């Protein structure tokens, strides 16, 4: 009896204290909102948004309800986070393998890249990227053409697009007067976020890949060599499956970080979720609700990513154990 009391009393006290604190904060919020004449609740999500969004995957305009604006923001977050994850993984693997190269020069070069990029805040890299894309590149009229059919300039990157309206075919972008018309256009904001996010995450992934490969015990590789496997076969059948077991859980964290880091895009005005929420907040004054929406979305994204990666991890781990 006394034991149970000792066990539960402090916990109940803590809970009561927490409830009191939350109640007090909630009371203050309601009081402050009433004073400013704001009605609490999420009903405002159904009212017209009243602001335009620079770029969106689906049709969007200011007369649509606010939740559509938030949805556009989420879509824009995913539109940059997913490709960045893929690029970061490929680039990170390459850099990680480069750091394990037998020749010292590529090893040093990759090491320098990693030490440079991971010791500079992502925000700074993002701002630098954006500045380079919008100020150092030529105007659209004399855009540079890195590959035939594509144009890079202050107004972004234009690529050929595959269209099926009404006939299927390539829609090639063309320099027309002071601008570029047609094709598939990527804004400088999007490009800056994509490049900065991919590079920054890639160096962290590189370290994970390197650590994972180093964690494979040399006996395993020696055994593979003894069986007469080629270097590539050893890499593919022995090193990689074993390394993946160490890599995948850490990689999950990196993808989660990448998604969260995409919120920095607010600094250069790429309309992802936080950016949209910020505009909505300034316009409606609903600080509480807007921040709750942002947090809820990120939490669900985190949970979904973690769940998917756990599924993949289970497969990798099983294959390794079998």
């Amino acid at each position, binding site marked *: 009896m006394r034991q149970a009391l000792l066990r539960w009393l402090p*916990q109940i006290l803590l809970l009561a204290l927490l409830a009191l604190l939350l109640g007090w904060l909630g009371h*203050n*919020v309601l*009081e402050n909102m009433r004073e400013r004449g704001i009605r609490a609740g999420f009903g405002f999500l159904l009212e017209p948004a009243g602001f335009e969004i620079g770029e969106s995957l689906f049709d969007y305009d200011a007369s649509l309800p606010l939740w559509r604006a938030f949805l556009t923001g989420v879509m824009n977050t995913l539109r940059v986070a997913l490709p960045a994850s893929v690029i970061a993984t490929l680039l990170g693997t390459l850099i990680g393998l480069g750091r394990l190269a037998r020749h010292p020069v590529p090893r040093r*070069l990759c090491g320098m890249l990693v030490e440079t990029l991971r010791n500079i805040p992502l925000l700074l890299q993002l701002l*630098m990227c954006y500045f380079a894309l919008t100020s150092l590149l030529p105007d659209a009229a004399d855009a540079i053409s890195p590959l035939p059919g594509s144009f890079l300039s202050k107004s972004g990157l234009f690529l050929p697009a595959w269209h099926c309206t009404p006939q299927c075919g390539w829609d090639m972008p063309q320099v027309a007067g002071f601008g570029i018309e047609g094709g598939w256009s990527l804004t400088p904001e999007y490009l800056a976020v994509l490049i900065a996010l991919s590079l920054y995450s890639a160096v962290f992934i590189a370290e994970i890949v390197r650590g994972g490969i180093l964690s494979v015990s040399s006996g395993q590789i020696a055994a593979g060599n003894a069986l007469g496997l080629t270097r590539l076969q050893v890499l593919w059948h022995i090193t990689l499956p074993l390394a993946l077991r160490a890599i995948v859980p850490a990689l999950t964290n990196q993808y989660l970080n990448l998604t969260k880091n995409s919120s920095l895009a607010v*600094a250069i005005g790429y309309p992802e979720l936080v950016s949209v929420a910020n505009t909505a907040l300034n316009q409606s004054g609903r*600080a509480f609700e807007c921040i709750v929406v942002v947090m809820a979305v*990120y939490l669900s994204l985190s949970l979904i990513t973690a769940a998917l990666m756990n599924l993949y991890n289970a497969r990798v781990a099983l294959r390794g154990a079998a």
Partner: protein
Amino acid sequence: MKRLPRLSTILWCALAALLLWPLFSWAIVHAVWIPDIDACRAARGVGACWGVITEKHRMLLFGRYPYAEQWRPLAATVLILLVLGGASWRRLWQPRLALGGLLVLGLAVLLMRGGLAGLSTVNTKEWGGLPLTLLISLGSTLLAFPFAILLALGRRSPLPLLRSLSTSYIELVRGVPLISLLFMAAFLFPLLLPAQLRIDILPRVVLTIAAFAAAYLAEVIRGGLQAVPAGQAIAAKALGMRYSQITLFIVLPQALRTALPALVNSFVGIFKDSSLISIVSLHELTGALAISLGGDADWRSFYLEGYLFIALIYWAFCFTLSQVSRHFEARLAHSRQKPQPEAAG
């Protein structure tokens, strides 16, 4: 006979030179070092204009702090650096000196703030640049640390309610981006407190970063706690120690020692993350760059050099700190390898 370099070495070196030479040529060979706008414009595209740093370095480093009083942030920066340097020196780890370090940090804040000993008061709105970055990252880490220890202990506590509360706090905070919490500090804090109670934006931001960092530090400390062999706590219990004694004198010291390299790395993360406060309009290093170049039509076109200068400062700090972390890690591995003295039979 001298050995000839292999073909692959020549090829790799050529590639490295091809990659690094344009950078070297732009940043060093053709660079303009004097604050001369015409020379800079002439060198545009060929060489860097480091003159912009010479011209603007006071504002880049100290933000809008009153020009005549800028010896104060300079002195504060030196004080903070001394504390940081002392903290990475193992021989200086004594309780008395730790207290001294905290006092010196307090002195740095007083020096910035003024209002006593004949110093004029400088509003926190005017603080900026490097001292602000240092104060915010260090201040929030120090505030976060005790909270993080409690969270880590709570997450491993046998009391189910305590455990689930700690776990949900940690997972909740780690699931959302820092920027959304900073927006909370900027817009939501005033709503959460009664109208009479208004807190300045700087302490709000420091508290928010502390609340954010605590979740990450807690996980690092938890890792350290898990590494302490269970036998240690059992032995202490057999000696008749209470839970608080076991935790304070047996488990925590060993856990923190193991976690130290990772804790330093977390501090590097917080240091980098402090750049985000420029988004809620505080002018630390990143924000100071915007106010020193953004409003100047002449120098605005040399933003890139400004970014690189700030990046160099961040890089120097983070790189040094990660070396310190590596040093701690090496020490730890070394002390583990030492053979245990044989117990006298």
